[in-house]
Structure formats: C-alpha cells, structure tokens
C-alpha cells in the first residue's frame, strides 16, 4: 500500500492504515458469532474498510455526504465509520432502539443520502418513514436474515457493496489513497446528536482533530496500550462509545469486542474479561443490585463471609487501591478477603482483568462508587459531554475523591463562571452544531469557552465537583439551595429504588416520585410471601411503601448532616404506578429524567403531594413496544416521611 496517505496520523483513516502496517496481524475487532468469538485483524479491517469505501464511491457517495448508521455494536458498523471518513463523508450514528418517527427528525436534519441498517428491523423502520425522507437514496444492510424478499433496487447487502468496492478498487487502484490524502484533520469526522433533554436534538459536529486529541490525551493519562481489550456494548450514537470504542481504540490500537446480542452482555463480559471498561452508573448499579439479590438468596455461611469481608473492604479496600498506608492486620485480612470474596466476585462480574474502568453520564452514588473501588476495581469518574468528546475532567490514579470528577484532562482548560457554571476550552470542543449557527453561538462564549450548563466548583486540591445542571439548581421558598439531582442520586443508590424525581423549587418543602426496582423489590416481596401481579400492583402494596419510606428517611438523616442541603429533606413521597419510560417521553434515550415533562404530565400528583392529600387517583396512557397504547390507572397513596430538625449553624 503506498505511503501517501500517511504523512501524519491526524485523521482516522490514516490511523487505521498505519495500524494495518505496524500491527497488521493483531486483533482489532472481535465479535461472537454462532457461539464462537471471531476476530478481524487490523489488516482485515483495513481491507474491509477499503472495500466499503470504494463500494460507497461506486454507489455515488460524495465528499461531504452524511451516512446514517443504525444498529447494535457490530464490527462492520464500526468499519463503515472509517470507510465514510476515507471519502470525506460524515457518519451519523443513531440510537438503534428509537422508533422510526423518532429517527425521522435526525435523518431529515442531517439530510442523509445513505444509511447503513444493521438488520431487517432497522431497514423496516427506514422504509416506514422513507416518504418523508426525499434525500435518502441508498440503504445498506449488515445482516441478510429476512431480507430475501426486499427487491427494491436501492437496498444493498453489505457483502455485495464490498464486492462492488473491490472491483472498483481494482479498476481505480489509486482512487482511495487519493481520497484519504485529501482528508484534513479539521474535517468533521462524526456527527453525534445530543439526546435532547431539552428541545429537539442537535447534531454536534466533531473533527478528526477533536476526537484524536481526546483519544490521545486519555490514552496517555491512563497509559493505555495496544494490549487493552474493551467490550463495546453501549449505543454507537453515544459520545462515550465513540470515544472509547472508536477514537481511543484507533489511537492506541487496542481491541474492541462486540457482544453477541443485547441480552448476552453479561456472559460476553465474563468471557472477554476486558482490561479497560466503560459503563454508565446505571450498569454498575444493576450489577451491584444483582449481586445483592443473589447474596440474599445465598446460604447463611456465605452471607456471613460476604458481609464480614465487605466490611473489611469498606474499611481499607479503597485506601489499598490508592496506595495509601494501611495497617498490617487490615492488609492481611484484605488479602484473605481477596481470596474468598473479592476475587471470585470480580470473576463473576467479568472484571478480573480490569486495569481501568470509567463511569460517566450521570453522577454515581458515593457508596456505589466506593463498593467497586473497595474490592480492587480501579473505577474512576470522568466528566464531559457530547460537545467536548466526553473529555473534560478525569480522575488521576491514586487521587480519587468519591464526590468529585477529578482534574482537568491534559490539554483542557476548565474554569468556573461567576454564576457557578462550568466553562471549558481545548482541542476537543465541537466545531459547531450542524446547520445551527444560532445554537453554536449560544453555547460558546466570546472568549471561546464552551458553556456546559452544569454548576460546579473546584475544591482545595483542584478537583472539580459537579452539583447539578445549572438550570436545575433551584431554591426552596425559604431561600435554601435545592439540587434535585443530588437528592435523586442518593435515593437511587438503594437497590429497591430505580428512579426518583424530586420537586421543591419555589416550594416550602421537597417532595418525591419514586419508581421501585421490580427485580429487587419483587425478590424482597417473594421472600416475605407477598403476592403481586405486576409493577402497578407491587408498587401499591403497603409493605412496599413502608420499605421505601425507610429509604427516604435514611437519606433525610444523611441530608441533615450536609449543611446547605439540610433543608432539602424529603417530606412527602409517593410510589408511581408505572415505570418511567423513554417510550412515553418521560426519560431520554440515555435514561435521564425529563423533569419538565414529568411535572406537567403528573401535575395532579404534585398538587396532591403539596396539598396534603393522603391519596390521589391517576390514569395514564402508556405506549407499548409495538406502538399500541393502553391505560394504567391506580389510586396512589401518599406518605409522609420523618424529617429531622435542621440545626442552623452560625454563619
């Protein structure tokens, strides 16, 4: 392969062809297919990418075109990203579980001419909205299953596309290298849509330079090499996956592993044993909930042993991981604990080989965070958003503070505005929102800082602490600070609580909606012989309300210790009759609560909470996965939680 494309490793295609030369027979991607892990080496990937890119060119793909990628994490979907970049186009990954109508906005906004759909399901979604998408000319699919009868000429099998590309490549051997050489580092390399917590999604345009700088910075910071293994299971449309599974993998040359299906992630995690792992707090939370459920079903001796050694780990585990001084007795006990509990537990979780694990996307409960660190998993937090390639702050090894997100990452400048908002600047900033100069101007100030919309402050050691979304931080009627996220996260740490929404801005007290975790509470109920028919029934049981009340009262006891948040104790709460669901627009696709929408939809419940009622009837429409609608109705009980008197300290 001629070396013309390789003047500098400043675009992703150049990085790929570089890896194909220097570590050509090392595994770049793996995927479990028919029960066996299949590998593609860097040389294989380069060959596939070449064929895909030439195939696209043969179909008429032009520089600057956008190509939508819709599907689970599959090797050929990742390859397609680089193939599109080779031609100077922009890949636009979409959330694969969205329904057609939801995808429509993004597809129209991005004006895609080409789409890569993983399977029949995704192709069907595209066909369903095709009439409203005049720009869409070609659909390529990855999985041929069920596609036999789709004879439309604009639908192509990815293998046929590659075959076409190989012929094109033979006829025009210099074509692709020429295209790759045309690529500039400040070209847009990918467009990621914001999840749309507020308003319509916006396409965030990131350049090769932004993601390569972020990838390099992260790899140097954590000393990542080409020997790492990572499990790529988070939506490809999410900035975190793009940074870890695409940018960092391409910069460091490590291996990405795609799970067999969404349901097998846990098994695949165990089989691969990644060395580098990324998951949102929710995943860590679910894992811990499962462990706790299984421990409750374990025999008495095992339970005793587990709880004893977890006590040891809580006392000294995190300190040992940070390399701090710990007494000999505790060290010996911890070593024993590792043999009997932590080692096997890490093995079950698939985390035996992990050197570095990150979490981000939402605040992680301190106790949850400490649990993983105490059993010797180097779990760290990072802070960033789509607009900053998820690369703003990282926690350095050995200096982990549970309630901070670490220090500014290499090359990134972070400062706090007078309003408390966090401002950032560096190579990782977005080039702009796609065709939205107004929005770009709104989010980047005159000095070139991106306004994150988060409120935070630096502590004495220069670690950044995030309090909440700047616009969510409100005030109670008496003027005390009210940070709903902070309280909700505390509630959500209880295994029995899946989701919580707190209200209190301009009110005289804080009230909360609670969603129970059906798995954990169901198990709890079964062991007590409480019969229930489903979520709504379980959520209305008096016993369950008592259980949740205990949780609420525990966090009230914690909050009262925390000075400025003491007034935020939860006075009244109810357990919702249905689970908050992205399909009903109550959560975003990344499962963040849409506070405004919820308070409108359930206005009657909020009124009942503040109006002192003891119960309230509510009827709600729900959407099922197949698009049908139904109604859930219940008479919700409202409980008062015990609160503790606030001791006002003299200022």
């Amino acid at each position: 392969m001629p070396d013309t494309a390789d003047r500098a490793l400043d675009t992703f295609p150049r990085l790929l062809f570089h890896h194909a030369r220097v570590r050509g027979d090392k595994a770049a991607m793996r995927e479990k297919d028919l029960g066996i892990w299949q590998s593609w080496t860097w040389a294989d990937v380069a060959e596939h990418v070449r064929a895909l890119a030439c195939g696209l060119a043969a179909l008429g793909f032009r520089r600057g075109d956008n190509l939508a990628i819709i599907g689970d994490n599959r090797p050929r979907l990742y390859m397609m990203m680089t193939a599109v970049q080779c031609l100077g186009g922009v890949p636009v990954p979409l959330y694969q579980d969205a329904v057609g109508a939801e995808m429509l906005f993004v597809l129209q906004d991005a004006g895609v001419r080409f789409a890569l759909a993983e399977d029949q399901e995704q192709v069907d979604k595209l066909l369903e909205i095709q009439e409203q998408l005049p720009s869409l000319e070609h659909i390529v699919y990855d999985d041929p299953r069920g596609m036999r009868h789709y004879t439309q000429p604009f639908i192509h099998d990815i293998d046929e596309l590659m075959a076409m590309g190989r012929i094109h490549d033979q006829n025009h051997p210099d074509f692709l290298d020429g295209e790759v050489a045309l690529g500039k580092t400040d070209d847009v390399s990918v467009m990621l849509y914001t999840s749309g917590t507020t308003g319509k999604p916006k396409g965030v345009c990131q350049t090769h330079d932004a993601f390569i700088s972020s990838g390099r910075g992260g790899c140097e910071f954590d000393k990542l090499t080409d020997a790492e293994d990572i499990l790529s299971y988070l939506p490809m449309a999410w900035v975190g996956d793009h940074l870890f599974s695409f940018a960092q993998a391409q910069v460091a040359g490590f291996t990405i592993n795609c799970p067999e299906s969404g349901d097998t992630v846990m098994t695949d995690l165990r089989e691969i044993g990644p060395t580098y792992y990324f998951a949102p707090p929710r995943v860590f939370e679910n894992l811990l909930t499962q462990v706790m459920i299984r421990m409750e079903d374990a025999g008495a001796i095992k339970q005793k042993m587990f709880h004893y050694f977890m006590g040891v780990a809580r006392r000294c585990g995190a300190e040992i991981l940070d390399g701090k001084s710990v007494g000999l007795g505790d060290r010996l006990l911890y070593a024993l604990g590792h043999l009997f509990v932590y080692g096997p537990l890490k093995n079950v979780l698939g985390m035996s080989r992990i050197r570095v694990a990150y979490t981000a996307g939402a605040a992680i409960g301190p106790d949850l965070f400490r649990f993983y660190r105490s059993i010797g998993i180097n779990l760290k937090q990072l802070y960033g958003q789509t607009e900053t390639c998820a690369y703003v702050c990282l926690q350095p090894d050995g200096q982990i503070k549970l309630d901070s997100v670490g220090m500014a990452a290499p090359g990134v400048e972070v400062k706090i505005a007078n309003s408390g908002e966090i401002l950032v600047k560096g190579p990782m900033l977005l080039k702009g929102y796609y065709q939205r100069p107004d929005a770009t101007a709104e989010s980047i100030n005159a000095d070139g800082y991106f306004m994150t919309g988060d409120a935070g402050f630096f502590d004495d050691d220069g670690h950044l602490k995030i309090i909440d979304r700047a616009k969510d931080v409100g005030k109670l009627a008496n003027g005390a600070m009210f940070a709903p996220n902070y309280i909700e996260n505390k509630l959500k740490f209880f295994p029995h609580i899946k989701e919580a929404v707190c209200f209190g801005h301009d009110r005289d007290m804080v009230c909360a909606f609670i969603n129970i975790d059906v798995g954990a509470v169901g198990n709890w109920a079964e062991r007590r012989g409480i019969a229930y028919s489903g979520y709504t029934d379980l959520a209305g049981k008096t016993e369950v309300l008592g259980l949740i009340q205990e949780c609420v009262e525990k966090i009230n006891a914690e909050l009262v210790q925390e000075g400025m948040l003491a007034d935020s104790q939860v006075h009244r709460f109810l357990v919702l009759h249905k689970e908050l669901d992205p399909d009903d627009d109550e959560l975003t696709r990344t499962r963040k609560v849409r506070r405004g929408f919820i308070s409108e939809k359930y206005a009657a419940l909020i009124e009942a909470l503040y109006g002192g009622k003891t119960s309230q009837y509510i009827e709600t429409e729900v959407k099922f996965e197949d698009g049908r609608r139904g109604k859930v109705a219940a008479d919700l009980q409202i409980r008062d939680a015990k609160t503790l008197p606030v001791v006002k300290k003299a200022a």
Partner: protein
Amino acid sequence: MNGRQIGDVILDLQNISLRFGGVKALTDISFDVREHEIRAIIGPNGAGKSSMLNVINGVYHPQEGRIVFHGEERRKMEPHMAAMQGIARTFQNIALFKGMSVLDNIMTGRITKMKANFLEQAIHVGRARREELAHRRKVEEVIDFLEIQHIRKTPVGRLPYGLQKRVELARALAAEPSMLLLDEPMAGMNVEEKQDMCRFILDVNDQMGTTIVLIEHDMGVVMDISDRVVVLDYGKKIGDGTPDDVRSNEEVISAYLGVAH
C-alpha cells in the same frame, strides 16, 4: 405474500381409519400436504388432531388406509424411521429434558445425524470429536435463528413456558427436517409470545423451505399463517381448503359454534 414456491404433494393420506379397540379415533380421512406449504389441522377437543400427527410420524398405525410419503407407500414403521426420513415434531405438552441445558437439549435433535459409534463418543476422539464440532455449528445456527443465545447454558426447567416452547422448536429444527409437525405450538402463550412464535414459524417455512403441519386452537393464528386448513370433528374430516373456504364452510361453523336444534 412472497416468492415461496409451493411444490407437489409430498405426503398423501388416503382413507385413514384408526381405532383403539372399539373407539374410532379417525374415520376415513384423506388429505394431502404439498411441499413448502403451511398446513393446519383444526378441530374441537377430541377431534383426533394429535392422533393424526401421530399417524404421520409413525407412532400410531392406522388399521385402514394408505400413506404415501415422497411417492412411496409407507409400510408399518417406527417413529425413529420417520425422523430418519426428515420428519421432526414438537409436542403439545413440552417434552424436553428439564435438567439439561438449552444447548444440550438442542444437541439431542442431532441424534439421527450422528455416525460415530458409542465407544468413539465415550472417549471423544477422532471422528466423534470432528462430528461434534460440526453438529455444534448447526445447533448454533439454530440458536441464532431463534434468538436464544442468552439462554444457551441455562437449564430448560428454569425457563419460562414461552421460551421452553421455542427451545422445543429449536430441537426439532436441529434435525434439519424437511417436514415439521407442530402440536399446538402456541398453546398457553401470551400475545407477544404468540407473535414471536408466528414469526419464527413463517421464517422457518420461508428461509429453510420446511413444510409445516400444525395443530392450533388460536383461529387468528391459523387463518393468518396457513396456506390450507383441514378441519376434523369426531374423527371425521368436515372441511378442507384455504382459510377463506374453511371460514365460510357451514359444517365447520356448526362444529365450532354449535347449531340451534
């Protein structure tokens, strides 16, 4: 609906009568099954539907009548011979090995294809080993087809009913049958599970070209997916034809809905 080609008659049942002592289970029943079609057998409880399936795969031997399969008249035979000829089936009440994993259960579906002798298999060398790998690959294809990767290693007894039904279908498919007999594949399932099962049955028929004979009580399902329907009542055939024909057949309506006397 699609480009699926329905072929010639591959199974022809002529004037079948089956008696258990004095009880007449089937009386003078004739119908045929064409290649690649989905053929439903319906009828009220006790109409003789399961007996009919048992006649087809050689569990029962009718006292009268001829069975012509692939152009050859069938002599008296045993169920395993039917399996050898490419007929696989699932049962009304799930007949899986509850303590074995999903994977092992499906592996048992390959039994007729195994060539290695007992000794070779016991010490797991040479031919037995190569064979097992090939069989495992086929089984994995079926697992992929029916989307049950996540329960591969789970003991069948721990699975919910709907999934057990799917595992049973997987075992039948592992035998790579040319004809599949399904005895109430959707009994006791909820709406979503039924939809899944329908899709799988249609996929099997469409992509593998398997001929399917099924018994089902859910009329919606039967009318939706079958090419032709035969209706039995008290061991007699009272209707035969496309779903539309059968739906408008007076005798069928009275058997199902009752008539005013």
